[in-house]
C-alpha cells in the first residue's frame, strides 16, 4: 500500500474510532429528573412568503444532530428533525422529533421567537416510543447563528441548550424498559 493510501486508510480508521468511543455515565437526581446540556447543529430548507412586515413568513424543515455536552437526559446524542411555520413575528407552530440509534423517538412541541440568529426557543416533550415511552421534560436554547445560502438552504446551530427529562408516572410504574 502506498504512503498516500496508508494516510487515507488512517483517516478512515480515525473517523471510525471517533464514532465508537465509549460514553460517560451519570446518575439521575432523587426526584428522577435528569438534566442535560447540548448543542444542536441543523440544516435544511426554508420557503419564504412576503408579509406586510419587515420579515417574511416561512416554512422550515431542518435536520441535524443534537449532541449532549453534559448529563444523560437525552442520552449521548440524537438525530433531530424540525418542521415549523414562522409568520414573520414568531414560530406559530413547530414540532420536533428526535430519533436514537435504535429508532426510538422523542416527540416535542416547539415555541419560539422567529427563527434567526440570537433568537430563543423552548421545547416541551410530549411523548416518546421505545425506551423513551412516557418521557416528560422540556428544554430551551438560543440560535447561535442561522445562515441562508440564497437558494433556500438554511444552516444553524443552537447553543445553550439546557433542559431536563424524567420518566412520566405511567412509565415509572413499570411500563418503561
Amino acid at each position, binding site marked *: 500500500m502506498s504512503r*498516500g*493510501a496508508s*494516510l*487515507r486508510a488512517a*483517516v*478512515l480508521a*480515525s*473517523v*471510525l474510532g*471517533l*464514532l*465508537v*468511543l465509549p*460514553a460517560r455515565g451519570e446518575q439521575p437526581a432523587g426526584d428522577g429528573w435528569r438534566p442535560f446540556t447540548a*448543542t444542536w*447543529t*441543523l*440544516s*435544511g430548507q426554508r420557503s419564504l412568503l412576503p408579509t406586510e412586515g419587515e420579515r417574511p413568513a416561512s416554512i422550515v424543515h431542518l*435536520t*441535524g*444532530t443534537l*449532541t449532549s*455536552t453534559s448529563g444523560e437526559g437525552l*442520552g*449521548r*446524542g*440524537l*438525530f*433531530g428533525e424540525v418542521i415549523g411555520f414562522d409568520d414573520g413575528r414568531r414560530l406559530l407552530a413547530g414540532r420536533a422529533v428526535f*430519533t*436514537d*440509534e*435504535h*429508532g426510538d423517538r422523542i416527540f416535542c412541541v416547539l415555541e419560539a421567537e422567529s427563527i434567526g*440568529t*440570537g433568537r430563543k426557543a423552548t421545547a416541551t416533550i410530549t411523548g416518546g416510543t421505545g425506551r423513551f415511552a412516557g418521557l416528560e421534560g422540556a428544554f430551551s436554547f438560543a440560535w*447561535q*447563528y442561522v*445562515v441562508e*445560502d440564497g*437558494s433556500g*438552504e438554511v*444552516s444553524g*446551530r443552537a*447553543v445553550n441548550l439546557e433542559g431536563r427529562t424524567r420518566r412520566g408516572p405511567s412509565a415509572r410504574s413499570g411500563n418503561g424498559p
Partner: protein
Amino acid sequence: MTAGTRTLVARLGVMALGVAIWFWPVPEGLTPPAWHLFAIFAATIASVIAGAFPILTASVLAVGISVLSGVLTPAKAYSGFANGTILLIVVAFLVARAIVKCGLGARLGHLVVKLFGRSTLGLGYSIFLLDAVIAPAFPSDTARSGVLYPLALSLAEGGGSRPDEATRKKMGAYLLFCSMATLSLSSALWLTAMAGNPLGAEIGKSMGFNISFGSWLLASLVPTLIAIAVLPLLIYKVFPPEVKATPGAPAAARKALAEMGPLSLHEKIVAATFVVMVLLWGLAGTLKLDLTAVAFLGLGVLLATGVLTLKDIGQQGDVLATFMWFAILYTLSGQLNALGFMGYLGQRLGGALGGLPWVAAYAILVVAYVLLHYLFVSQTAHVLALFGVFLGVGSQLGVPVPLLGFALLFSTSYMSTITPQASSANVLVVGSGYLTQGELYRLGTITTAFNILLLLLVGTPWLLFVAR
C-alpha cells in the same frame, strides 16, 4: 500479483469494509439510515482510492444500493441530477468545447504563449496569476473553473498534448492540474471568490468575529501569496511535464497568430458569448442572476448560431459520465450531512479535545477540519456543516477566535483538491482525461498538505499579528 488479482483483492476489501461498517452497532447519537449511508459512502470512496472501481462504477453501484436497501428514498437519491451547480459544470464543459472547436481556444493559447511561453512552468504561473486577478469578481469558483479550463485546455492542445497516454504528460496534465490547484488559492485570497466565504463570515459574525473585504484580504495575503509563488513550482517538481523549455514557442506563437489572420465569424460569436457570460457571472451576485441560467443561455446562443451542433453534443460522452458520478457523490455526501452525520462527527471530535493547550487544539482542529473533507463533495456544504461547530469548540478551548476563524475559512479553499470530488470546481479537469484518478489523489494530497502546512507554520504567526 497480477493486475487482475490486485483488482479482485481490492474489490473484496472494499466490500468487506462496507459490510463491516454496515453491521457494526450504530453509534449512540446516529440513526441507522445515517450509519448505513456512511457505510455505503465510505466503501465508495475507498473503492476509488484503492483502485477497485473507477469513480463512475463506484458511484452508480452506491446509488443503486442506497435506494434498494431503503437507506435513501429515490427522490433524495436522484436530487443531485437537478442540482444547479452540477448542471453548470455540464454546460461549462460544452461551452469549453465550442471555444476549442472554433479556433478561439488556439488563438488564446497562442496569445498566452507569446507572453509567457518560454517554458511550461511560465505557463503554469500565468494560469495562477490570471486566476488570482479575476477571482474577486467571481463569486463562484465553479464558474471561474469554466473560464480557466478552456484556456488550459487550449494551451495543452496548442503544445501538442492531448488526453491520450502518448501525449497527455507533455504539458497538458501539468497545466490542467495547475488550473485546478490555482482555485484552491484564489478562493482563499478574496472574500468574494468562493460562495462559502461570505457564509462563513456570517457565521463568524454570530461569535463576534467580524470580517470585511479588507480584513479578509489582509489576513490571507501572506500565506496565499507565498503559496501562489511556490505551488506552481512544487507541482512542476513532483509532476514534471515532459516538455519543459520551449524557448522557440513565443516566436512560433507569433507566427501562428499571424497565419490565423483575423477572427472568423464563429470565433467572434464565441468570444462575444463568452465575454457576456463572464460579465454576467461576475455580476451574478449584484444582479441576483442564476449562474447556471447564464451558462444555459450562452450554450443556447452557441447552438442557435451553429457554432456547436447536435452532433458535437452527442460526441461528449465524457460529459455524461462526469455528470453522473458527480451528481451521485454530491447527493450521497449531502444526505450524509442531512442525516446529521457530519455535525455529529464534528461535535464528537470537539468533545475529545478537552484539556488540550489551545495551540495543540488549534492545530488538531485545522487538520481534522481538512481531513473530514474526504466525506464532502462541496466546500460550501463543508462550511455550513462544520465551520460553526469547530469555531465554537475552539473558542471553548481558548483558541483565539479570529485566528481559528480565518484558518478554517482559508482551509476550506486550501483543501479543495484533496480528492477529485472535493469541489465542483475540480470536475472539469477531472473529466478532461488528462489525469488519472491516482495522479489526482496524489497531487491533491501534496497540494493540500503544502497549503495547510504553510497556513499552520507561516499563516498562524501572521494571523496572530493582523487578526485580533
